[in-house]
């Protein structure tokens, strides 16, 4: 059986003395429902209440999401024994009946890199070059080897689609750093994506913690953000229009003294006005010099990574960049794995490494957490018998995730899978543990970051999760 057989539910950690105390324990959130600091110029009480639980190592984070599940044994987890046992059928309790041609060695050579000497596949030369800035977790695992539940688990902790996403939780816990920009931005080159918006949903968290979801197939700023530019008025004309609006709103407010909500609306309008110019600048990657754009590569993913850097630089709290194309889940290499895998790597590797290096160059890597992962890995054995189409199936009991910056110990390997890459055997890291660790690095205690909904407290990590302290610098 898999964990899908069992719903999960968060109870209180210990019996609260009374309801009021319980509410107070639920960190932040309360009293922020209607207005929140998002729109106020000076930090409001609500925002101050969001002080992190622990000293944060990262102020912002970016998740580079390899949709479809990249093969761990062809990227970060070398398994020479696959060569030795090539063609042998895997034993043990397999999730799906195996019809393929047995263990399948990686056609890609692994070599040691950097001072740390971490072994990385030749398919990722750029990430290999900067591996001393990275931590490789080789013992990841998730509950179910199907895309939808695994995607949902990696994004929301839960395998059914009705929970808030990691980014919404972070925004709820930490608020935004730049009130002129959305605090949580999702970048994807194609509108269609498996599962879809449930991956970045704020679910029952208030709408102010929602993601701004941006399709990056056309990088013109007006195409990126809905309603960011007035089609008919120049900024000066709009300013004149908003001056009138503000006068009328002030007259309205004067007759309703003391209504802070009306005042909040007036401020939100001003923020929106400023956001137009600020976002127009931040979202415009054409302002980057050619040599920088060249480093990321002129691909959909490369351009999105570059945009991610600009967003992080300007105070966006959490950015997700999806590696998707018209195939929705390009890393899902059931067939022709050996041909497709290197192509995907070439694109992803260049842009991902460029982003990490660029952040470092700008002094941002220290407090920016970079996460590179798919929803699971791929089987160390072949899925099909036909050697011309050979591919790898979904694999959830061992896969690799790369972390960089944001308080993570660079040049380290954490955990290990067994000799074939079948199961995480040493220091296994469940997705819940990864989430707990991400929250921890951002200054939040995953057991205290809660939201009361439907009669109980919810957490990103439900009743699970353990901070992986050993990877923290």
């Amino acid at each position, binding site marked *: *059986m898999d964990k899908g057989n069992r719903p999960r539910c968060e109870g209180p950690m210990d019996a609260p003395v009374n309801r009021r105390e319980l509410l107070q324990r639920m960190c932040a959130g309360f009293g922020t429902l209607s207005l929140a600091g998002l729109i106020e110029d000076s930090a409001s009480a609500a925002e101050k209440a969001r002080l992190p639980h622990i000293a944060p190592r990262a102020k912002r984070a970016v998740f580079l999401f390899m949709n479809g599940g990249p093969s761990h044994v062809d990227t970060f987890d070398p398994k020479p024994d696959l060569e030795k046992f090539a063609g042998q059928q895997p034993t043990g309790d397999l999730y799906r009946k195996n019809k393929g041609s047995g263990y399948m060695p990686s056609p890609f050579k692994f070599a040691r890199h950097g001072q740390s000497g971490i072994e990385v596949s030749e398919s990722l030369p750029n990430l290999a070059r900067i591996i001393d800035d990275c931590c490789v977790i080789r013992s990841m695992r998730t509950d179910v080897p199907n895309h939808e539940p695994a995607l949902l688990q990696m994004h929301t902790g839960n395998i059914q689609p009705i929970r808030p996403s990691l980014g919404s939780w972070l925004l709820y816990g930490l608020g935004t750093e730049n009130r002129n920009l959305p605090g949580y931005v999702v970048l994807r080159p194609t509108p269609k994506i498996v599962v879809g918006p449930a991956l970045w949903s704020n679910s029952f968290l208030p709408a102010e913690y929602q993601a701004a979801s941006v399709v990056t197939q056309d990088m013109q700023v007006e195409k990126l953000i*809905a*309603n960011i530019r007035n089609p*008919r008025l120049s900024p000066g004309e709009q300013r004149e229009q908003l001056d009138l609006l503000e006068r*009328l709103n002030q007259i309205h407010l004067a007759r309703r003294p003391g209504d802070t909500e009306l005042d909040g609306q007036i401020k939100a309008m001003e923020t929106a006005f400023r956001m137009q110019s600020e976002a127009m600048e931040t979202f415009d990657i054409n302002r980057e010099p050619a040599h920088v754009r060249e480093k990321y590569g002129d691909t959909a993913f490369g351009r999105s990574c570059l945009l991610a850097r600009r967003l992080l630089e300007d105070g966006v709290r959490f950015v997700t960049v999806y590696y998707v194309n018209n195939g929705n889940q390009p890393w899902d290499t059931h067939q022709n794995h050996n041909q497709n895998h290197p192509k995907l790597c070439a694109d992803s590797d260049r842009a991902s490494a460029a982003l990490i290096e660029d952040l470092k160059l700008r002094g941002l890597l220290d407090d920016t957490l970079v996460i590179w992962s798919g929803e699971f890995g791929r089987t160390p054995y072949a899925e099909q018998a036909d050697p011309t189409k050979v591919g790898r199936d979904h694999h959830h009991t061992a896969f690799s995730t790369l972390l960089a910056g944001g308080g993570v110990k660079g040049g380290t390997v954490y955990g290990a899978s067994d000799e074939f890459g079948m199961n995480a055997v040493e220091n296994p890291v469940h997705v819940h543990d990864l989430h707990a660790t991400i929250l921890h690095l951002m200054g939040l205690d995953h057991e205290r970051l809660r939201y009361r909904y*439907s*009669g109980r407290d919810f957490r990103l990590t439900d009743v699970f999760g353990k901070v992986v302290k050993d990877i923290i610098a």
Partner: protein
Amino acid sequence: MRAVGVFLALVGGAALAAPAVGDKAVATAPPPSESRIDWTEARQHWSFRAPQARPRPAVKRKDWPRQPLDWFVLSRLEQKGFAPAPEADRRTLVRRLTYDLTGLPPTPEEVGAFLADARDGAYERLVDRLLASPRFGERLASMWLPLARYAEDQAHQVGNDTKFFYPNAHLYRQWVVDAFNRDLPYDRFVRLQLAADSLRDEKGSSSSELAALGFLGLGPKYYNRNRLDVMADEWQDRVDTVTRTFLGLTVACARCHDHKYDPVTMHDYYALAGVFASTKMVNKAPSGVVAANTEAAKFPKDALHIVEDDKPQDLNIFLRGNVENKGPVAPRRFLRVLSDADPEPFRQGSGRSELAEAIVAPGNPLTARVMVNRLWGQVFGNPLVGTPSNFGLLGDQPTHPELLDDLAIRFVKNGWSVKSAVREMVLSATYRQSSVVAAAPQPVAKGKKPVDPMTADPANALLWRMNRRRLSVEQWRDSVLFTSGQLDLTGGPSLELTDPANRKRTLYARISRLKLDDFLTQFDYPDANVHAEKRAVTTTPMQKLFVLNSPFAQEQAKALAARLTADAGESDPSRVTRAYQLLYAREPTAAELDLALAYLSGPAEGMPRWERYAQVLLAANEMMYLD
């Protein structure tokens, strides 16, 4: 291999501190026990005791109350040293009432007629006209549908698969609108939504109101419906939606362990889940044709998405919620805490009709309270119980317990008439108060120090004034379309809000679980995957970008400008006056008129001045708030 990845949750009792344990611990966990609960004691919680009829409380200002509810409100105010706010002016009242009962603003002609009606009972006549409007049902449907997590698709779609979609969901929506319009007694409203297929109408023939079963039949469906664990998730949705909507109880919390706070056990949960496990979801035309496992396009044209009884089955309790770890059988029955003694097992088919009867039974202490509390929230902005779907131990206490009881008792006595309950609320002196905070607090009695209500009760829990309220997304979009002369008042099948030709009321927008419309998301419409207890009210710059720059805002400004010219001719002062009448139900002040005329006389290249000005009026706070 599977065992490696498996962590099982232990979510009961003290085990919480050590959440991850292996299979073994689960297998040896004790079965949940009902004997741990002292049921007599448990039934003492305020909401589990029957509402008590109370004598009308004593008040000093005997000339203030207009309706029975006012005596309760005034009595609390006087006890705390508060004075009620003065009555709002008539313009404010007509705008407030029209929005509250129809979701739309009054027309200038309606405002004029009300102001001109100097006869006795003008206000009552206005109330009765609005209650009789077909817009009333639409207004209350806006309240009801998010409770029923109304939607037309699923959160998850594989490829282009539409077999779990609900293309005719609007038939349920229309049934809800009609039910409120014809003032269907609430007990019947509940019965029909749970068991219309087993009910007879007055003539004794089987009910023609099968569409009501959409309440259950539009629930989330998940892939792999042949798997027990997947179905267990679906049953949880049904239990959760039914118990929170009708009873204000979070029974689904008891799926993996007895409820942490409320006297609701796993037995209770599985006894109700068994009802839905004995039910199947069908797409069935009134002719009886059923679509089985086919794409939505191939459903019968008039298929209703409803439930039918399947083979009745009692579920085993799934220990720790794990479907592979079966505990004792939980015969289908009602909640023990709401039953006098041991609840009788359900015997008729799935048990849905018995469940419905138990919910509306005279002795049920929750059902009427929960509904009048929702109506109160709709009319006054804040419900008396701040957690309208949780009347359990962790829910809020009522701000006015005696009032809630009195309303609940009279709701049932008045034949569960929703219109009568709403009528009393809007006729009350409490409702007619001004929302403006008086500059200087008034002493209640001679020689007594005045209470500053803003300091003593800023949240207005005591109802010392009317709440100022932000319009819902439905009200706001509808009023923009209405005042610009564009609103199409027909119902029927849904349209996408992104469709520029969609001029229908927002209620008739397609609601998606997969991807809720951006505009709805932006303006706080709740996620349709689960019962939505109430809406968040957020203010974000992204909302303002919509108001400033969206094609909708641009088009409506243009349409409004054109309408003003059509209504009031070319004279700027006439058009400005007409705009204020249409949008805000009042005349502009001299200062507002001056500002308008100065702005309108500015340079006029590009976007016409009048369109710019119309957009300002539509974007203003006065357009979004109700005094």
